[in-house]
């Protein structure tokens, strides 16, 4: 067989994922071009790429989401392939279709598979047909308390009664047993009528404190689909993952093989190709239910790479070139344990308020078992225009304890100044007994944050150091000022201006 060999890949993204794709392409000797908005002219992907092209002003709707302009660019600069990263246009089937029409290979699944998996209803139907378990219930509205009782008996208590027009946690009621059902039905329907002007409700099995566990799959264009093990992503804040690990502390070898098998079946059901992720809700009794399939590279893909030794982005490119998955994709056994934290410019203990600004100091942790997938550099600006993720820090160890120890050590080495970060949150997590024991569920982080169980450590120990350091700076500052006043009048301003310029503050 002969295959395509890409000459140039357009990376239609920004931040750490653009950097990640550039690295993979360069490892393969493929030239890279990257898109940038006005806000990203000085960003790390631009510095690392071979070529860089402006696609518009800061607003993503005017730049990174400009599907037409981006396809035009890809064609104009002669790139034979395009990598969408994640977010932006990555799950836009229409965009993938336009790439294909213009002869630019979209590195990802076919637009057809993306569309099928993009529809929540359609994918549930397909999964059911393929024999992949979905959360029981939700077939349609229940007309009466009596009908509800029959259906609830079928799916088994506890169940949730949900307003059809509801969402975001509103208009739902937990029912523990048959005796609660009638009154709950009345309350939910009247509430639904009052809140949404639509009294219809449906039933779904209630899964208590579930985990979010997902399986990475990879499929070539020759009919081979493999599962690369699972990732535990239960640590979420407002439904956003903040820490991921592989393998999951809750998944046994048996459970892994049945989850992986289900994930492969899910992918095969839509003729899926390239990298994808099948997300499951894992109940405490070991049952797992299909949630959705993400038809793209996942933020947390590095933890899978660390335990399998594979390069998923390189594989995405190879598969898009038409190559079959090789022998290294047979009998994959995870080796050791990997954990990733997402580093955000935000004040984690003050409502996660974003903290834009210039990074005045950046010293990444290094050494054995540490990987940095970072999208920023010292001196660059974290702007207000995009998600404030700075990058990801990944730690590997032969076992979970070693991986977590290394993560803790790495966080203590990491220096980021100029913006606040969520590092203090991870530092606290690393001493949380539930987290250390691997007892997680998707509501745990929000619960612990609102109960104050996870809170900024009292730092009375460092108070004297902080006071002394501030006093030292004050003293030096006043001495410098005095010296300047004596020797040269107002030149201190020049010093300050030049200093700001030298550290790259061009605001």
């Amino acid at each position, binding site marked *: 067989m002969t295959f395509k060999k890409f000459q140039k890949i357009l990376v239609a993204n920004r931040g750490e994922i653009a950097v990640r794709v550039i690295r993979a392409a360069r490892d393969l000797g493929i030239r890279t071009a990257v898109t940038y908005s006005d806000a990203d002219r000085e960003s790390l992907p631009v510095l690392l790429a071979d070529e860089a092209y402006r696609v518009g002003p800061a607003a993503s709707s005017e730049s990174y989401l400009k599907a037409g302009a981006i396809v035009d660019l890809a064609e104009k600069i002669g790139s034979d392939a395009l990598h969408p990263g994640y977010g932006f246009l990555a799950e836009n089937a229409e965009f993938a279709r336009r790439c294909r029409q213009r002869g630019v290979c979209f590195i990802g699944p076919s637009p057809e598979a993306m569309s099928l998996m993009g529809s929540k209803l359609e994918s549930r139907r397909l999964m059911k047909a393929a024999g992949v378990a979905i959360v029981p219930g939700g077939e349609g509205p229940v007309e009466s308390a009596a009908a509800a009782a029959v259906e609830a008996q079928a799916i088994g208590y506890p169940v949730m009664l949900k307003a059809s027009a509801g969402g975001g946690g509103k208009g739902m009621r937990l029912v523990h047993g048959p005796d609660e059902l009638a009154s709950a039905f009345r309350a939910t329907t009247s509430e639904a009528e009052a809140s949404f002007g639509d009294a219809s409700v449906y039933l779904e099995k209630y899964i208590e404190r579930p985990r979010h566990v997902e399986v990475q799959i990879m499929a070539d264009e020759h009919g081979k689909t493999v599962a690369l093990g699972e990732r535990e992503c239960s640590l979420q804040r407002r439904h956003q993952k903040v820490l991921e690990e592989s393998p999951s502390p809750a998944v046994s070898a048996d459970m892994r093989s049945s989850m992986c098998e289900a994930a492969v079946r899910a992918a095969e059901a839509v003729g899926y190709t390239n990298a994808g992720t099948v997300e499951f809700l894992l109940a405490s009794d070991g049952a797992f239910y299909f949630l959705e399939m993400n038809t793209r590279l996942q933020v947390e893909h590095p933890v899978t790479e660390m335990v399998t030794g594979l390069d998923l982005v390189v594989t995405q490119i190879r598969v898009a070139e038409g190559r079959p998955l090789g022998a290294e994709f047979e009998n994959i056994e995870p080796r050791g344990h990997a954990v990733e934290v997402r580093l955000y410019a935000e004040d984690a203990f*003050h*409502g*996660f*308020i*974003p*903290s*834009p600004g210039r990074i*005045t*100091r950046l010293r990444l942790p290094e050494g054995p078992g540490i990987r940095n997938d970072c999208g920023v550099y010292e001196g660059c600006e974290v702007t*207000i*225009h*995009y*998600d*404030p993720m700075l990058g990801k820090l990944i730690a590997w160890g032969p076992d979970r304890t070693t991986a977590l120890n290394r993560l803790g050590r790495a966080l*203590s080495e990491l*220096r980021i*100044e100029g913006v*606040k970060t969520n*590092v*203090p949150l991870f530092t606290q997590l690393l001493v949380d007994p539930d987290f250390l024991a691997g007892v997680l569920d998707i509501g745990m982080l929000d619960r612990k944050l609102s109960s104050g169980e996870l809170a*900024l450590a009292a*730092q009375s120990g*460092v*108070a*004297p*150091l*902080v*006071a*002394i*350091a*501030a*006093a*030292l*700076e*004050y*003293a030096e*500052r006043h001495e410098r000022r005095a010296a300047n006043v004596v020797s040269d009048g107002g030149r201190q301003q020049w010093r300050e201006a030049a200093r700001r310029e030298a*550290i790259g503050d061009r605001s």
Partner: protein
Amino acid sequence: MRLIVRQGEDEKQVRLERDGNTAQIELDGESVELEFEPLGDGARSILWGGNHYEVTVRHIRADRYEVSGSFGSQVVEVLDPLTHLAATAHDAQAGMGTEQVTAYMPGRVVKVLAGEGETVEAGQGILVLAAMKMENEIQAERSGVLRRLFVTEGQAVEGGDPLYELG
């Protein structure tokens, strides 16, 4: 040099004698000797009884300094006793110190959670600002009285615009 360092509610008396890269310090009556080395851009390597600390201090404005290290970052006030006396007198006169809080970044006020004149606790939400594609609750840094609200719901703000004044 005698200084007063305010850390939240706490106030420390610091006496500082520097000699090159060493300093004799009296902190609330206790004597400490340390050695420090500038690392550029406000960073210092500090040796204090063998223990090592790397700390960066940045002057923010007026008497305020931000001190960051492996423990995160804290904002403290450094005052000379004269200024401090004046400030205390002023505070006494005004009832207590007031502080104006400004917007971190451009955004839109989607909700106001507290009213003027209301007594608020540290950590209590004052308003919700939508910025960087997220809704962010702006919380009181300390307890006090919400003396003024400069914004209303729906209002767009620029970074640096005053939001409220805490007394």
